[in-house]
C-alpha cells in the first residue's frame, strides 16, 4: 500500500553457448524486466538466435492464414503435439491449399465481373434486333451507337439525315425515357452525320465487351446469365470450402500463432542484450521478493556458468514500477494506467483514490435509487465483459458510494418522500443549495490539503525535510495566514490584520525559495482549485433538478388518469434512464478530473515505466 514493490537491479552475464538456456529460463520465470541495451563502444547489442528468421517466416505465414481465413482471436486450448516441425509442415500444406482456393476464387470473381459488363451492354442492345457481329470495323461503312435524352428526336433525326444521303440504316429502341440508336452510314459521310447527331444532343456509347460475339443480343444474354449463375455457384462453393478449412484449422492456427510468437520473442531476446564475441550480458529488474529463488533457478539453468550481480535500486536509477495494493484497491490502479505510473520513490495514490474517488462520485450522484440501479447494471456488465473487470469494479464501488450518499441526502429517484413517508436526510440538495456549496468547497479544502500532505512526504523522501517544508509546508502557512486574515478582518478574533498578511508573505517567500518564480505564481491556483470543487454541488444539483422535473411531469400525467398513466410511466422510465446516463458520465469524469488536476498536482510526478517482465503477456 502507498509504495510499489521493492525492486532489485540485476545483471546476468555468461558465455554465449548457454545463452539460449538462460533465455528459456528467464522466459519461464516471467519476473525479469529487461532493460534494453543500446550500442556503445564497450559492447554491441546481441544477434538474434539462429532460429529467429525461420520462426518469423512461419509466423508471417500463420498470421496470413489467420487473416485470409477470417479467424477471430479467442480462448483456445488446442495443444501442439510435435512443436515447430508440426507447425511448419502443417502451415505450409495449409498455405498451399488456401492460396489455391483463393486464386480460384479470384479467377471466378474476375470472370464474373467481366460477364457483368458484357451483360450490361447486351441489355442495351437486346431491343435492337441485329447480329452482334455487325458491330465491327468496316472499310466503307461507319456506325454510331448512343443515346438521346428525349424520344421525340428520332423522327427529326431521320429527316435531317435524309438530307445528306438516302443510304443509311437507323435502328432505335426506347427504355426508361431514353432512346437508344444504332446508325449505319457510308464511311465518307461519317463526319457530316456526326455533326447532325451532335446538334440533336447525341450521347455516344461504346461497346467494347461484345466484340467477337455472334448472334443476336437476347440469345447471348441468356448464355451470359447462365454463365454468371454458374460462376456465382462456383465462388460460393469455394467460399464454403475456405470457411470449412477455417473452422477445422482454427484451433491449430491460433495455437500456432501463440506458440510461434512466444518462440520468436525468445529468439529475438538477444537484441535487448549486450554482447561481445563470446559472452552476453542482460540488465534488468526483479522484485526483491522473487530475487532469491529466481537467481537460484537461473544458476541451475546456466549450469553455474553464469554470474548474477544484484543490488538495490540507487537514487538516480529509472526503476520500472510494479504497483502493490491490497486486492480491494487493485481495480483503482486502472486510473494510474490511464495517467502515468508513479515513480519508484513516490507515494502510490491508488489506495487513497480507492477511498476518495467513490466519495466524490457519490457526492455528485447521491441518489439511493440511482445507486441501486447502477450497482445492478455494473454487476451485470462485469459478468458480461470480464475483460473490463477492473473498470466495472471501480464503478461498483462508486455505485455503493451513491447509495450511501443517497441515504444522507434522503433521495430516491429524486423523490424526497415515498407514499407520504418523508425520507430522513442530513442535507436536502434541492432546497439547501448554499449549504451544499459550502459542503462541496469544504470537501475540496480537505482533499487539496490531503494532496499537499502527501506532497510533503514525497518531497521529504526525495529532497529532504527542508525542501519539503519550503515547497509544501509553505502552503499550510499560507492557508493559516488566509484564515487569520479573514477572521481578523471580520472581527471574529482580535488580532492585528498584519499577522495574517505576514504569514502569507512568508509563505510566498518560502515558495520562491523552493521553486523559483513559479512558486508564488501558483498561489492563486489555491483559490481556483478550491472553487473547482463547487462542481460537486453543480453536477449533483443538475442531476437532482432533472430528476424532480421528470417526476413532476410524470405526476401531471398520472393525475389525468386512464391512458395517460401509461405515458407517465414511459416518461419516468425514459427520463430517469437518460438522467442516470448523464449523471454517470458527469460524475465519473468530474471525480476523475478533480483527482488528476486538483489532487495529483499537489504531490504526484509520475513518469515511471510500468514493470513488464519478459515472457509475460499483456493482460
Amino acid at each position, binding site marked *: 500500500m502507498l509504495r510499489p514493490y521493492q525492486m532489485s537491479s540485476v545483471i546476468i552475464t555468461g558465455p554465449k553457448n548457454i545463452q539460449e538456456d538462460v533465455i528459456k529460463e528467464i522466459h519461464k520465470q516471467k519476473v525479469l524486466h529487461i532493460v534494453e541495451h543500446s550500442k556503445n563502444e564497450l559492447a554491441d547489442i546481441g544477434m538474434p538466435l539462429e532460429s529467429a528468421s525461420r520462426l518469423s517466416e512461419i509466423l508471417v505465414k500463420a498470421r496470413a492464414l489467420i487473416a485470409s481465413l477470417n479467424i477471430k482471436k479467442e480462448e483456445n486450448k488446442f495443444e501442439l503435439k510435435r512443436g515447430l516441425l508440426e507447425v511448419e509442415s502443417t502451415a505450409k500444406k495449409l498455405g498451399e491449399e488456401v492460396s489455391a482456393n483463393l486464386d480460384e476464387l479470384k479467377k471466378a470473381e474476375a470472370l464474373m465481373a467481366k460477364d457483368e459488363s458484357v451483360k450490361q451492354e447486351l441489355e442495351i442492345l437486346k431491343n435492337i434486333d441485329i447480329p452482334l457481329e455487325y458491330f465491327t470495323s468496316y472499310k466503307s461503312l461507319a456506325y454510331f451507337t448512343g443515346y438521346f435524352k428525349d424520344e421525340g428526336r428520332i423522327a427529326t433525326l431521320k429527316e435531317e439525315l435524309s438530307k445528306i444521303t438516302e443510304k443509311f440504316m437507323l435502328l432505335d429502341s426506347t427504355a426508361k425515357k431514353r432512346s437508344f440508336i444504332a446508325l449505319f452510314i457510308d464511311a465518307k459521310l461519317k463526319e457530316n452525320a456526326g455533326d447532325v447527331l451532335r446538334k440533336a444532343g447525341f450521347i455516344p456509347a461504346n461497346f467494347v465487351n461484345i466484340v467477337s460475339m455472334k448472334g443476336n443480343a437476347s440469345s447471348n444474354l441468356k448464355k451470359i446469365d447462365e454463365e454468371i449463375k454458374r460462376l456465382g455457384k462456383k465462388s460460393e462453393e469455394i467460399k464454403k470450402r475456405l470457411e470449412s478449412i477455417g473452422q477445422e484449422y482454427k484451433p491449430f492456427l491460433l495455437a500456432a500463432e501463440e506458440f510461434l510468437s512466444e518462440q520468436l520473442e525468445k529468439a529475438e531476446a538477444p537484441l535487448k542484450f549486450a554482447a561481445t564475441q563470446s559472452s552476453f550480458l542482460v540488465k534488468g529488474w526483479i522484485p526483491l521478493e522473487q530475487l532469491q529463488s529466481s537467481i537460484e533457478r537461473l544458476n541451475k539453468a546456466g549450469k553455474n556458468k553464469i554470474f548474477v550481480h544484484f543490488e538495490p535500486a540507487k537514487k538516480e536509477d529509472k526503476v520500472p514500477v510494479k504497483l502493490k495494493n491490497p486486492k480491494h484497491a487493485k481495480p483503482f490502479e486502472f486510473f494510474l494506467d*490511464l*495517467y502515468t505510473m508513479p515513480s519508484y520513490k513516490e507515494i502510490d495514490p491508488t489506495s487513497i483514490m480507492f477511498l476518495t474517488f467513490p466519495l466524490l462520485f457519490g457526492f455528485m450522484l447521491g441518489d439511493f435509487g440511482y445507486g441501486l440501479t447502477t450497482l445492478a447494471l455494473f454487476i451485470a456488465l462485469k459478468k458480461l465483459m470480464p475483460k473490463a473487470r477492473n473498470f466495472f469494479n471501480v464503478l461498483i464501488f462508486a455505485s455503493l458510494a451513491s447509495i450511501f450518499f443517497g441515504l444522507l441526502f434522503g433521495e430516491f429517484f429524486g423523490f424526497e418522500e415515498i407514499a407520504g413517508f418523508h425520507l430522513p436526510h442530513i442535507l436536502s440538495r434541492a432546497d439547501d443549495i448554499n449549504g451544499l456549496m459550502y459542503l462541496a468547497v469544504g470537501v475540496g479544502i480537505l482533499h487539496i490539503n490531503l494532496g499537499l500532505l502527501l506532497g510533503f512526504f514525497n518531497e521529504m523522501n526525495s529532497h529532504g525535510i527542508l525542501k519539503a517544508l519550503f515547497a509544501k509546508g509553505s502552503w499550510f502557512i499560507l492557508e493559516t495566514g488566509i484564515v487569520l486574515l479573514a477572521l481578523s478582518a471580520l472581527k471574529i478574533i482580535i488580532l492585528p490584520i498584519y499577522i495574517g498578511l505576514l504569514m502569507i508573505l512568508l509563505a510566498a517567500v518560502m515558495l520562491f525559495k523552493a521553486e523559483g518564480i513559479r512558486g508564488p505564481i501558483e498561489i492563486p491556483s489555491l483559490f481556483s482549485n478550491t*472553487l473547482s470543487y463547487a*462542481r460537486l454541488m453543480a453536477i449533483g444539483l443538475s442531476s437532482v433538478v432533472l430528476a424532480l422535473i421528470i417526476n413532476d411531469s410524470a405526476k401531471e400525467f398520472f393525475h389525468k388518469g386512464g391512458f395517460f398513466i401509461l405515458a407517465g410511466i414511459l416518461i419516468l422510465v425514459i427520463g430517469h434512464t437518460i438522467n442516470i446516463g448523464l449523471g454517470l458520465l458527469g460524475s465519473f469524469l*468530474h471525480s476523475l478530473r478533480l483527482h*488528476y*488536476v486538483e489532487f495529483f498536482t499537489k504531490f504526484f510526478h509520475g513518469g515511471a515505466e510500468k514493470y513488464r517482465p519478459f515472457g509475460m503477456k499483456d493482460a
Partner: protein
Amino acid sequence: MAVELSTGLVALASGVAIGASAIAAAWAEKEIGVAAIGAMAEKEELFGKGLILTVIPETIVIFGLVIA
C-alpha cells in the same frame, strides 16, 4: 404575477453568467478535443491525458455558476 424589476435583472444576469461561461467552455473544449484526438492518433496511450485536458475548461462553467 408581478415581479420586481430588480429580481428580474438578477435572474437575467445569472442566466447570462451561466450561458456565456458555458459557451466559452464549449468552445475551449472543442479546440482541446480536436487536439487531443490528433495526439491520440499518434500515440494511443494519451487517451487519459486527453480526456482530462478536455474537461479542464468545465471549470469556467463552474465559476459562472458560482457567481450566478
